[in-house]
């Protein structure tokens, strides 16, 4: 009996290590490559050489991701609340419209969106174009995870709070928001990571606006310079930032909301 348990545990660990290696090997290789200069020296000089040009791009991408997360939260939470708590005419078409972006190829949608905003508002030639396209593009991520969270939230908690004298806003702040943590957490993390690393929309916008986000800058450098050490350094920085933000977020918010969904 014990032998069986031990054997399955060993297999589980081997599997986890194997999958981890698969995930981490590309990162380790690019990181290792980033430590070597063109003249064969080992060190951090690649990081210093590209810093002046690349860090402003990273800062821009970070800002865009954070703005996207905040705007998507502001839009998705009330929308998800209304879609789960109230019955009204046209509910399903509205939901389909909100998540419709997922049903078309990314590049086609990005192009259509950029053209629309350019033709209607003449705005895609600025940072506003990035914000609008990112926010719209990643809304389904936040919306669907919020809808799941609201569906799991028993209405009786809100009713109990109402009977105890809590107004609608207070119920939302003290009861609803803390209890929909799981949905918000996964939605925030996915929206942040995916928008920080977003390439298609950013690439299409880069031409008319001349604004390069960090992932597009990496692509641009690979196209022009090949896989040199400083390009590997740029790729490593993007990966390190993504992982660091997730780590810090989970440290602050806690991992309890991800139990059962992620190996923690």
């Amino acid at each position: 009996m014990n032998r069986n348990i031990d054997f399955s545990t060993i297999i589980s660990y081997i599997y986890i290590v194997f999958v981890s290696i698969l995930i981490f090997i590309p990162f380790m290789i690019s990181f290792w490559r980033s430590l070597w200069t063109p003249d064969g020296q080992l060190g951090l000089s690649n990081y210093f050489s590209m810093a002046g040009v690349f860090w402003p791009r990273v800062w821009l991408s970070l800002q865009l991701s954070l703005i996207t997360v905040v705007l998507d939260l502001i839009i998705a939470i009330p929308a998800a609340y209304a879609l789960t708590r109230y019955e009204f005419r046209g509910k399903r078409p509205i939901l389909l419209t909100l998540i419709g972006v997922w049903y078309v190829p990314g590049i086609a949608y990005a192009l259509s969106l950029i053209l629309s905003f350019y033709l209607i508002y003449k705005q895609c030639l600025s940072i506003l174009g990035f914000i609008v396209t990112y926010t719209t593009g990643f809304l389904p991520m936040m919306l669907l995870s919020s809808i799941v969270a609201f569906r799991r939230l028993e209405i009786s908690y809100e009713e109990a709070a109402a009977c105890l004298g809590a107004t609608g806003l207070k119920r939302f702040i003290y009861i609803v928001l803390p209890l929909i943590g799981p949905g918000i957490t996964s939605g925030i993390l996915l929206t942040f990571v995916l928008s920080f690393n977003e390439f298609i929309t950013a690439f299409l916008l880069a031409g008319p606006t001349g604004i390069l986000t960090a992932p597009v800058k990496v692509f641009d450098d690979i196209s022009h310079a090949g896989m040199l050490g400083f390009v590997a350094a740029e790729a490593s920085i993007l990966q390190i930032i993504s992982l660091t933000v997730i780590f810090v977020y989970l440290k602050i918010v806690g991992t309890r909301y991800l139990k059962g969904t992620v190996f923690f």
Partner: protein
Amino acid sequence: MVSVRAVDISKRFGDFLAVNHVNIEARDRELITLLGPSGCGKTTTLRIISGLVKPDTGEVYFGEKNVTNVPPHKRNIGFVFQKVALFPHMNVYKNVSFGLKMKKFPKNEIDKRVKEVLKIVRMEGFEERMPSQLSGGQVQRIDIARVLAIDPEVLLFDEPLGHLDAKLRDDLKYEIRRIQKETGKTAIYVTHDQAEAFAISDRVYVMNHGQVQQVGTPIELYLNPKSDFVADFIGTSNFLEGTISEIYENRLKIKVNDGLILVSEVMPNVQEYKVNDNVIVSIRPEDIELLGNLTIKENSFEAKVERSTFLGTNTRLLIALGNRILKVDLYGPERFKIIDTAVSTNFHVRRFTIIKKT
């Protein structure tokens, strides 16, 4: 303290008429129960009184104040839910103090009230526990403490013991009654369990198909059900169809379809009946007694015992009367008697209820 009245309230959900012109009154400091089977409209009625559901028609009054359009958070009610609604992210102290915090009580007053109500529900010292660290009964006590903390005018209970085991239900129902009496609150309690309703209520509203079928004290309802539904839902009854064959000396003689002749006691309302009226006779199993070899002329009959089952506190007999099987419950020393199932035995109907057939 305050009385609660629901006047002519109705509520429809799509095609389903959940509450159909219901009138309810809980007098000051009274505990009334809405009793009925699933889907009878009792919970919807309670939720209308709480303000969680808006009625299609009718009005709700707390005392003389019409609260029909007052939202629940302004009604000053205490609602104990069937599904436990303790906030899982707050400890006991925070749960109990939540309502006081919403009503902006000062911190020292909150501390004092929390201590007081935890003492009432006998849960002192549990302030730091999280809901997940409490047993089912403890959670329900904290839920009650939480609603008592805000000193509500009215207590509303929606099957609060529904998910607890039988022993705990038994203990907690008396606790609820004790707390209601001690605090002197007007209370409305919803349950489908007749024993629970009878144990704690001053008066019971029996509901079915969205309507109130009968109102009365537990004893009134048990002894004088006005419909076959109430007679059947409250306890157990044998129903026999019959016709009034004679009226004399303020008594009714009823010819039951199975050949039995039953004579009622003197009835104050005998003028409500006429000869040849069709009626239903409801006989409680404990109101049929074993006569053995003795004979009483009136309301007695002979029947063969089909089955005898000893149940501890009583023995349940199934006896054949014509084509019908009647239930008979024997209590006291009689329950230990060995009943011969091979021969017919004499039985006597001690009391029965006459229900007009509609």
